């Protein structure tokens, strides 16, 4: 019997008041921010986090995302908290019309400031649903950065791994049960996928879901499936990912990206229910999570709300 759960991929769009506030102070990553301003921002972020957590609770999802409202993109937030990175100019984010600032590795990567932990605690305090936390995947962090320090990418990925393990352990101490690791670049099939993700997994009992998108997961699926608890698949943009479901042994937890974060058209409940029923016939996972294919910040706020509501309604059918 497979448990059917629901969630979203996290990374919410910012509500207007938070955007305006950040605009008025000229961006987040200012080094010389006054304590007073910092406090103010924290208040605005708390308010926005409350709002997105409420949405997920109201829609009766099974897991709740913290929201990642402070994150400018998948890399900037962690990279500004890790020693050794310097932020550089804007570059196109995969094959999208979005841009991100390239982190440059200038020095040995070491954890500097806390990140994620405080935000996660706050989310836990206000959500009745269990919180899933998001971490950037090691291969993506390295792939989208410019390495000007390490001679071998092996050493770079090892240091990134250490930082992630530190975070995973702290999150486990907080009682977090599931972490979603967004690793879109992993589909480019780098060396060492097995080793790195096994090392992450070995240090913890909580469930790690490696979320893939922007690429076909087929070439790396088997390798990943051998070692991790969970895998996320984009089932909107990659027809080939459906073949994985039909033909391969699936992981213990399967995150199904059936809702498209890159289109404002809201999915029809009945259609998704049928898709899930269909999937249940040919997979052997313990748990599936009906979800979005990728970050919600590709959507305007009202459409994001509508999609969350619909995911909740689909979940009620199972």
């Amino acid at each position: 019997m497979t448990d059917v759960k629901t969630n979203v991929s996290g990374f919410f769009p910012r509500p207007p008041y938070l955007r305006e506030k950040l605009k008025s102070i000229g961006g987040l990553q200012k080094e010389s921010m006054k304590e007073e301003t910092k406090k103010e921002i924290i208040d605005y972020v708390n308010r926005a986090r409350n709002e997105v957590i409420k949405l997920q609770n109201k829609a009766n999802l099974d897991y709740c995302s913290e929201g990642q409202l402070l994150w400018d993109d998948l890399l900037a937030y962690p990279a500004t908290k890790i020693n050794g990175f310097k932020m550089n100019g804007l570059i196109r984010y995969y094959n999208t019309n979005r841009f991100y600032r390239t982190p440059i590795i200038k020095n040995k990567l070491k954890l500097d400031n806390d990140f994620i932990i405080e935000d996660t605690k706050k989310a836990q305090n206000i959500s009745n649903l269990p919180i899933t936390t998001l971490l950037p995947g090691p291969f993506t962090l390295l792939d989208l950065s410019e390495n000007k320090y390490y001679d071998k990418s092996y050493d770079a990925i090892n240091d990134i791994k250490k930082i992630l393990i530190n975070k995973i352990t702290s999150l486990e101490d907080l009682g977090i049960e599931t972490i979603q690791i967004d690793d879109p670049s992993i589909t480019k099939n780098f060396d060492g996928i097995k080793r790195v993700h096994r090392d992450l997994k070995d240090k913890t009992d909580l469930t790690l879901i490696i979320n893939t998108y922007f690429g076909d997961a087929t070439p790396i699926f088997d390798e990943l499936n051998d070692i991790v608890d969970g895998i996320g698949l984009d089932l909107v943009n990659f027809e080939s990912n459906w073949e994985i479901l039909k033909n391969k042994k699936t992981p213990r937890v399967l995150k199904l990206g059936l809702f498209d974060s890159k289109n404002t058209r809201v999915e029809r409940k009945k259609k998704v229910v049928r898709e899930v029923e269909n999937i249940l016939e040919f997979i052997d996972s313990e748990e599936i999570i009906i979800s979005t294919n990728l970050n919600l910040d590709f959507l305007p706020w009202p459409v994001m709300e509508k999609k969350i509501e619909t995911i909740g309604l689909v979940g009620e059918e199972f």
Partner: protein
Amino acid sequence: MIDTLFPTTVIGSYPKPKWLNRVRELNKEDKFSDKKLKEAEDDAAKIIINEQERAGLDVFNDGEMRREEMVEFFADKIPGYRFYGPVRVWGNNYFNKPSVVEELRAPDPMLVDEFEFNRKFASKDKIIKVPITGPYTIAEWSFNEVYDTKKELIFRLAEIINEEIKRLEDAGARCIQIDEPALSTRPEEVELVGNAIDETVEGVNVDKTILHACYGKFSEIYPEILDFDVDQFALEFANNNFKYIDALKEYEFTKELGLGCVDVHKSSVESVKTIKENIRRGLEVVNPESLWINPDCGLKLLPKSSSFKKLKNMVKAAQELREENI
């Protein structure tokens, strides 16, 4: 169309007066009527037309005083589009990305009033350039809820824009510039863009059709773009230090070149000498008769005073070269 060597022009946008932005804000908050906004836009347009005349340009417009954003402006006028709210472009920068929610229908004239106004208030010996966002860029920056493929959407938009260009031609426009900043971002789609551009200018008989592209790795779309059915390519060069000029030399450049010779991302004003050197780089690609002089891209993000000074120096550089050449 124009008998001087090295015609000087702009790509389109110019910094807006602060009061115009304020009036627009108040209009959005319903504190200022549409009529008052229109008045403010008219005033701003006259000022910018005058400013560009004083800079000495040959071909220009109103600095797009009536337009806020190059996709939003058109999507707002085409029935079938809807705005749900802003979407992140990067960091804390959001853009009102429109969604196609019904099959697109023919809009009322979108730019004819603007053109007629500009024509009326610019000196008769000057030429008005009308920038219009191309079908590929509008489609690329829209959500598509309706059409089965992006291609279908692009070609529907090409029809709509073609219709608009014909209206402009009927109103007396002689110089149309299609803006496709998205062109060089997806080099693998260059053929699709070309077909869409051909459709966009189908049956158009204005004196000059120009295609503007920026942020580009032009080496990846060259020489394919030479097949596009336009007279001129206005491209960005100054910002990337003429990185792609050599690539353009590999094949005979069979069109006119609009040479981006001042940077729109740096407010420091290039000297006349520097601009002259930049223009000479353009002459490595085309004959003097085929070279137009323009900034890399729209000027709207620059401080007002450096916009004006950049244009003035650009005009002076062209002038000096004309004298040296003839």
